[in-house]
């Protein structure tokens, strides 16, 4: 179910989803652009954070430039359902792991836990995964690397937001 989001919210959030204007008062720049008061843009921005519309308001870095060159998707088979929580927690404790999720398995896909592992090279990512597998005692695992990227973008929620009529 969608949250109660007005046309004004959509207008502000569309700006927050771009990159902040590189000015000393970026919220003032946004406010001027969309015809609102600076104070309102700041208040609304804080409100969206409190409502958890966004997870984080901050800088996103180019990982390559910041020293992380390779990433692999570690996939882990944990057939016993009762073990998955513990394995998931142990694997996610690695600082090289950015994301860790449980997902469904299916007939020729025996894996339950997915971890994104970051390192200097694919070999390093494989070494980290091997260390992880030894720690949790899982031998049925693999690390998949992306060999080609066809599309990578941030979701543009606000271009096609389904607004109610009464906004």
């Amino acid at each position, binding site marked *: 179910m969608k949250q109660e989001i007005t046309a004004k919210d959509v207008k502000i959030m569309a700006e927050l989803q771009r990159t902040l204007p590189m000015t000393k008062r970026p919220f003032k720049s946004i406010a001027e652009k969309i015809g609102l008061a600076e104070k309102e843009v700041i208040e609304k921005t804080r409100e969206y954070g409190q409502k958890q519309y*966004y997870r984080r308001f901050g800088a996103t870095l180019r990982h390559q430039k910041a020293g992380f060159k390779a990433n692999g998707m570690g996939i882990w088979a944990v057939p016993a359902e009762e073990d998955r929580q513990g394995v998931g927690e142990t694997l996610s404790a690695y600082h090289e792991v950015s994301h860790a999720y449980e997902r469904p398995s299916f007939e020729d896909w025996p894996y339950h836990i997915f971890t994104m592992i970051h390192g200097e090279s694919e070999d390093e990512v494989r070494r980290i995964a091997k260390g992880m597998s030894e720690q949790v005692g899982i031998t049925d695992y693999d690390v998949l690397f992306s060999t080609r990227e066809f599309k990578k973008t941030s979701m543009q929620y606000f271009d096609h937001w389904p607004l109610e009529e009464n906004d």
Partner: protein
Amino acid sequence: MDETDKRILNIIQTGFPVCERPYEKIGEQTGLTEDEAFDRVKAMFDSKIIRRIGASFDSRGLGWTSTLCAMSVPPEKIEEVAGMVAKYHGVTHNYERNHNYNLWFTYIAPDLDAIDKTLSEIESKSGYKVHNLPMLKKFKIKVDFKFKEKEGAGK
């Protein structure tokens, strides 16, 4: 990138100040003036160390839903199928991986019905099965990478 830059990045990755004068606030935390803090952030933005400063909207927080999908497509067909998949607005990431399940994509939509509808459409258009792997449990999500700061670093 020096120690002060790293401290700035650690602050603004976690939370860029939402206030009238954010660079004044960053300066207070790093022993810089507002101008110095702004110039450093701008330099890192211009040199593309910082890709973007903004909100990372959360599909679930907004009431939307997302999933990861896997397909097994013959290598000679992969570009054609990937091209068709990439046309969907809700497909945010679409890539090939070194596995029998070689085509992967993430899909975001307002609700589960919309996801089912699109995945069935992709199946019928491509002729290959789409395996839907929605998140069952989240153990960790961390999108900022902290830099090690030296003791007493700063200005």
